[in-house]
């Protein structure tokens, strides 16, 4: 273990770290997660995309449709994550670059740990919000439906709408970044020749 922490990244390992940082930075510009609604009277499609710092798509229309079942309005202001997530992502990317520069495995491991914990927290929060919105329904709603938690990835049917959810390009870039870190730490290390 000591040896592991004292080893250094090979040049290939460092390049993989730089690529990971890039993937994670680029993820800021793409949706992390999406929700697509399909219904006969929306031939043009209806979707919501969650970015690190904003919610895109037609949340105004989705909110309006949701109010019939008493769902709370989805509003950017209600998601504190959106305000600090870009900074967390940026910080992780910086740490990765720092690890790549120094080549030190111990720092790299801490960075990977941080990124993984951040990612898992993100996924937990996503589940939390899905659960909250799907179960905290206004009892006075015009259309009463049993509480539900939409799947994070998959398909759900609600009245006339089929909902497709899943990770967006940004989400996959984040996963790719973490995988690159893992691969680098797994295969591309060398011990300092003292």
């Amino acid at each position, binding site marked *: 273990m000591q040896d592991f922490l004292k080893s250094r990244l090979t040049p290939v390992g460092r390049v993989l770290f730089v690529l990971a940082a890039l993937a994670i930075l680029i993820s800021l510009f793409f949706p992390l997660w999406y929700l697509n609604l399909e219904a006969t009277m929306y031939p*043009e499609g209806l979707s919501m995309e969650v970015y690190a710092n904003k919610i895109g798509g*037609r949340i*105004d*229309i989705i909110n*309006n449709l949701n109010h*019939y079942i008493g769902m709370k309005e989805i509003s950017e202001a209600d998601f504190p994550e959106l305000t600090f997530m870009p900074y967390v992502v940026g910080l992780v990317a910086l740490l990765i670059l720092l690890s790549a520069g120094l080549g030190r495995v111990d720092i790299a491991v801490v960075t990977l740990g941080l990124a993984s914990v951040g990612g898992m927290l993100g996924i937990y929060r996503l589940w939390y919000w899905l659960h909250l919105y799907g179960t905290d329904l206004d009892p006075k709603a*015009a259309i009463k439906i049993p509480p539900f938690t939409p799947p994070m990835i998959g398909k759900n049917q609600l009245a006339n709408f089929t909902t497709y959810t899943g990770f967006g390009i940004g989400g996959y870039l984040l996963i790719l970044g973490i995988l690159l870190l893992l691969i680098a730490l797994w295969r591309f290390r060398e011990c300092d020749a003292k």
Partner: protein
Amino acid sequence: MQNGTFKVIALSLAGLLVGLILAVFLSAQLSPRDEAGGSKAVPSISRAGVSDDILDAALKTYVPPGKHDEYYMVASGGHSGHIFVYGVPSMRRIRTIPVFTPDSAIGWGWTAESKEMLGGFTWGDVHHPSFSETGGDYDGRWLFVNDNANSRVARIDLDSWTVGQILGPVPNIYGPHGAVFVTPNTEYFMMASRFAGPIPFGTYAEIEKFSEEYKCNVSAIGIDPLTGEMELSWQMLLPPWSFDLSDAGKLVSDGWMFLTSYNTEEAYELLEVNASQRERDYILAINWRMVEEAVAGGKYTIIGGAKVIEPTDVPGAVYLIPCAKSPHGVDVTPDGKYIVGNGKLAPFVTVFSFEKFMECVNNGDFEGEERGMPIVNYDKVRVAEVEVGLGPLHTQFDDQGYAYTTLFVESAVAKWNLETFEVVDKVQAHYCPGHLVAAHGDTVNPHGKYLVSLNKLAKDKFLSVGPSHPEAMQLIDLTSPRMKVLMDVPVDPEPHFAQMIHRDLIKTFKVYPKDESQPGAVYKKEDARIERDGNHVTVYMMSFRSRYYPDIVEVNEGDHVTWYVTNTDFDDDITHGFGICLYDINIEAQPGQTQKVEFVADKPGVWPFYCTNFCSALHQEMQGFLLVKPKQ
């Protein structure tokens, strides 16, 4: 050895399979399915008891569910004051657009804006729609139409298909039938008087002084190239000759315009007889660029607020071309080289050469003058009298060098060649066609393909609805060597002229953009409110599926109420209505749009209001109450 042979056989079989799949894939790519829907025919298909002709017509006009037509056709609605939008070739009616007549379906004439545009009139007589043009072809920006009754013109903006402006009544002009025909770059459209009268409006003159005191004119309506804003630029006074139709020159003849006249007899009673005495009336040729310059140089007087100029003020700008007989339409060929006078009371169309006309003008080759305007030498400018048949009224063109002329009296459409000036085909029309319209048929770039004959009588063509009949439109196929009627289509009274434009040129928007600066607009329910200022109450109301904020509105009897309705469903096709029971009010707000209605709460009591345009499953619940407290 055997193993090797097996390998070869297996490989070649696999190769064949791959090749086959590729071939099927490629052939599907090379002959894609028909995009336009119905424009390609398969005449060889036949079914028991159904003739090839009928199958051909059905295939050429059938547009399957979910597919769109290839062309928009916009037909004037005549004295209904509306315009009608059709899809060609299916001939499905897509929409009615109210222009000069109120229409509660969209609140036209109830909203403050439309009420102001209508200017107190409750009807109009829409005759001739004209698309804006760039370089002599439609550009899909605007549609202009005239009101023959009340001397007005309107612009329809083709991004929203709503009226953007109504200009008029334009001063000094009675019955602008000879409108609207735009110049090739939409610099102007011209309006010419059908009726002569004393000017300005309101002037009294004895009918016996018809020849001296009664005036016609041609009005040039200038169009802002960026906004489409119309304004009266100038008017040229003309003799009381009843001008019928007009067309602008194009390409070689650009800068000129041509008007037909049918009462050079200057009759003022029993025109049917008295205006039909001369064998030839005139087509007036006007060099509008020269007139424009003269006006810019200050050569005008102001009458009725308009800049008015006389032909004699601009020598060399106005000429008379004799044309048989009480001619109706005048149409310039796509290349701009010929001017076609449609004879009406003569059984032929007269084709004039613009080149020869210019020779006469330049050489002073005149056969006389009338009221100071030179008459060009008829025998010199006329290149053909094409014997098309009885009652020729209007001509349109295709892309193959042919012209198509309606024959009102004969109930037919004649096709004739623009080089040989010979009639090559004729098809019966049911009954009595007036105008006709071909795809881009009056531009420098006609498309051919489809022709619609706009018939004045329907008689036995459709299921009877009693003594008042629909008008009849007939779709005629131009893709075969012989013209063929593909379909009969009923239409409300009364399309005069129409225009047919390719769908690719029309770019619409579907939702009004949010605009916080717009007076009265509210986009948040916290901002929805009722304000009182003395006895003036302003309601800032928000409407979205399926509620109004506010939905209880209390005013006092006699209050002046200004009521804004904003539709905050920024969602395609989610329209909300707003009707107040027994208050004679109904309007609509399209997605994102803010509308305004004003009224005096003069009826005390409680009056329900509700969404009149079905919007959602809970549309029926979209309602509220207007409480009008009685005076003490």
